[in-house]
């Protein structure tokens, strides 16, 4: 990159907050502070009150702040100063948040005792004990680190989803999509699974987030999980059947009709976090061709990897053997996948690196389910982003704000529709386009891909002459 290509600009944005914004901010920060203090083992009693106050403050604070901030301004695209702000231009604040998030994930996955998880029958302490009361409420057992994570995750989607809806309040697609994202997380991923677990506390654990299907849920076919489902009574059998049906039948059919967006940016939890908490970082994804090459290589490798792991694991399950071709199935297959992909990739890098690499690193480079749906979307689907004739002015807003790093402009400026495996259909490219060039829509497959050399607006003879050489559209 040549060094003249970007202006050295300090933040020209004078942060002037009014009292309501300050109130919101302080509420939110106080709520967070309670959790930080708890993590540092400060005694806060009574815990059940403190944790509810913390959650309430975060939720109300964010809402008050966002509502005030965005309703003060006219509705429309709100990207002023994005590249000047320390949080969102990979400067100090961005790095700090990235490091803290990454650290949190490292503790969560590998050192939960530092978050206060009671080991060997000891009671919880620190952050985790704060959530005991909520966990007891749902399932009469103390909180695990995963319960705390799930609660905070849901809180993030809820609070920042509300913020997102104020920000895009002029855009009906975004409003409806985000409502669904929030509801899916709150109910399908959080409340219903926790309640079901409470109701079935005798049966062994199996994943009850019905939309978290294989291969995103990589342990679905592992022996312990299969056994637990089989031993899980009617509910277990139901989850087993639905889990397979979702992947094999439901997903391809829906993806054919509306593209993979129904999952990736409407109901998925990873996508949900990316769309809400990750929204301020969407412009940080790399649009380089080299990144696209890496993406195709990586995501398909992960797909192959999970496929092999699953086949091997199932082989082990049905033969009753712990080995495959002389290799320990656990040590050589399930464990590395869980560590490398499940924890490192989707957690630590996927979320921890939001402020450096953008909000969809996992969805773009790693997620095998996204890879699977992507193939359907690219080759057998009615979904496309239509380019509006010759209206594109090559401004680059669409490419800049595409979280999946798709160079949308490269297609739009040629008058071509965008049909790409990785598009999650978030609709932001269409929202930010200042010329109304892009529309996400589902239509007939015929004419979905329309290679053009000469654009609409030009002499009809020339268009026919040139374009008919390349296409029969």
């Amino acid at each position, binding site marked *: 990159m040549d060094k003249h290509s970007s202006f050295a600009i300090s933040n020209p944005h*004078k942060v002037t907050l009014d009292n309501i914004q300050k109130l919101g901010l302080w509420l939110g920060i106080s709520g967070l502070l309670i959790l930080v203090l708890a993590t540092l083992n400060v005694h806060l009693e009574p815990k059940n009150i403190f944790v509810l106050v913390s959650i309430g403050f975060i939720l109300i604070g964010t809402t008050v702040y966002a509502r005030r901030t965005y309703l003060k301004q006219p509705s429309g695209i709100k*990207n002023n*100063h994005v590249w000047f702000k320390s949080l969102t231009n990979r400067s100090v604040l961005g790095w700090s948040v990235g490091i803290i998030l990454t650290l949190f994930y490292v503790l969560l996955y590998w050192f939960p005792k530092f978050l206060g998880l009671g080991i060997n029958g000891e009671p919880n302490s620190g952050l985790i004990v704060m959530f005991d009361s909520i966990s007891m409420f749902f399932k009469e057992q103390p909180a695990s680190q995963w319960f705390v994570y799930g609660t905070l995750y849901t809180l993030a989607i809820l609070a920042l989803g509300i913020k997102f809806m104020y920000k895009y309040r002029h855009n009906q697609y975004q409003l409806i999509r985000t409502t669904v994202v929030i509801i899916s997380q709150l109910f399908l991923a959080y409340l219903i699974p926790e309640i079901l677990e409470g109701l079935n506390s005798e049966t062994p654990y199996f994943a009850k987030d019905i939309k978290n299907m294989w291969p995103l849920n990589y342990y679905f076919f592992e022996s312990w999980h299969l056994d637990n489902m089989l031993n899980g009574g009617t509910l277990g059998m139901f989850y087993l059947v639905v889990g397979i049906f979702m992947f094999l039948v439901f997903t391809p059919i829906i993806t054919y009709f509306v593209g993979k967006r129904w999952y990736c940016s409407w109901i998925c939890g990873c996508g949900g976090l990316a769309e809400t908490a990750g929204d301020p970082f969407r412009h940080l994804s790399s649009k380089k061709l080299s990144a696209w090459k890496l993406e195709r290589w990586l995501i398909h490798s992960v797909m192959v990897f999970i496929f092999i792991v699953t086949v091997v694991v199932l082989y082990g399950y049905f033969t009753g053997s712990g080995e495959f071709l002389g290799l320990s199935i656990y040590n050589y297959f399930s464990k590395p996948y869980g560590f490398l992909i499940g924890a490192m990739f989707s957690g630590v890098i996927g979320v921890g690196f939001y402020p450096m690499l953008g909000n969809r690193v996992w969805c773009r480079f790693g997620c095998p389910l996204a890879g699977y749906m992507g193939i359907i979307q690219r080759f057998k689907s009615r979904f496309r982003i239509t380019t*509006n004739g010759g209206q594109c002015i*090559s401004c680059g807003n669409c490419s800049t704000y595409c979280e999946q790093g798709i160079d949308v402009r490269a297609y739009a400026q040629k008058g071509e529709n965008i049909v790409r495996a990785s598009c999650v259909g978030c609709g932001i490219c269409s929202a930010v386009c200042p010329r109304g060039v892009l529309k996400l829509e589902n239509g007939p497959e015929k*004419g979905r891909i329309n290679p053009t050399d000469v654009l609409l*607006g*030009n002499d*009809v003879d020339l268009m026919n002459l040139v374009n008919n050489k390349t296409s029969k559209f």
Partner: protein
Amino acid sequence: MEHIVIIGNGISGVTAARHIRKLSDKKITIISAETDYFFSRTALMYVYMGHMKFEHTQPYENWFWKKNRIELKKGYVTRVDTKQKTLHFINNDTLQYDKLIIATGSKPNKFGWPGQDLDGVMGMYHKQDLESLEKFAPNNNVCKRAVIVGGGLIGIELAEMLHSRHIPVTFLVRESSFWNKVLPKQESEMINKEIISNGIDLRLGVNLKEIKPDENGKVKSIVIAETGEEIPCNVVGLTAGVSPNIDFIKDSEIETNHGVKVNRYLETNIPDVYAIGDCAEQHEAIGNRRPIEAVWYTGRMMGETVAQTICKNRIPYKPGHWFNSAKFFDIEYQTYGWIWAEPKENEARFYWQHESEKKCIHISFDKNTKEFIGINCLGIRMRHEYFDKALTEKRTVNYVLEHLADANFDPEFYKLHEPEIVAKFNNEHGTNIHLKKKSWKRIFNLTN
């Protein structure tokens, strides 16, 4: 190998180069004094506003040029010697060409106002203008107020830019309503409101008299001609239109008027010399178009056309139906066909405006034949292909309204106003048009 040299790395020059490369193996060189690489001028505002970094305005990655064997040369051409087929550069460099394409774009108009060259006075066209804006108006401490002179598309963009940095803006517009030489009254008024509601000090019907300097030769204030009012300011933006950037060929043998004179094949009076984009002037205007068309789309179309001609498929420049778009603060604007500020003799008009939101459409059609002539849309997106086809097929306004659902291009789930629009038309014109459901078949031309 034939050497094609293109002066100007804007949309027209770059489109020509890309298409020549597609069609041939010729040697291609693009010259520019402005930047190393092609960037989108229309996106400059977003850099200042912090939506994008400058590198994001570049539609092609830097390796693109080498890979496509398009040579880039940075330098300012001072003279064209058409006899020797040689370009002379400001640093005394020279370059030989076999065929020359002049694609040097525009420069901001200056009308000889006193003080127009002071520090802090700038146009908003080149990357250098952006740099100087960054210097003189980085924030509202350095720039306490800015005055913009000239109410066109670039003027309103500059107002939005400065506004994004909380700099108070006074906007001097000569006309009695914003851009009302192009926009009909209703649209123009909606934009006036939008400007004012964003806190811009909009002054309609006024002209600039002079710009006054402080003791350091920097802008201190401006004076309004009509009222004599003096407005203190630190930056003056001159956005009273643009004109072709062709001073360096004025004393060559290439014929010029306002722009470089070209025929329909985009050829100048000198063999092997062509001109395209903002700087080209047609001998005779094409249809209702102006002889000089300083817009992005036409630059691109001329680039596509001249590439054919240069690669042995000599064809005339035949732009299709007029279209354009812009964004006025938060209001998007699209237009298809012609809808003049004032209706012509044979025209009737239909106007619909949303009761509370900033949305309207304005349709022009022939009084007698009912043939559809053009549409303006504010706050509603419409499908280019739909109107292009309707114009080609000379459809009536009734047909256009009947199939308006096909035309809508707003994102999914947006409220559709078509029923209301059609009802209003029926009411005003005593017609009985029934809105048809959106049909993919029609949209995709699968049937009629």
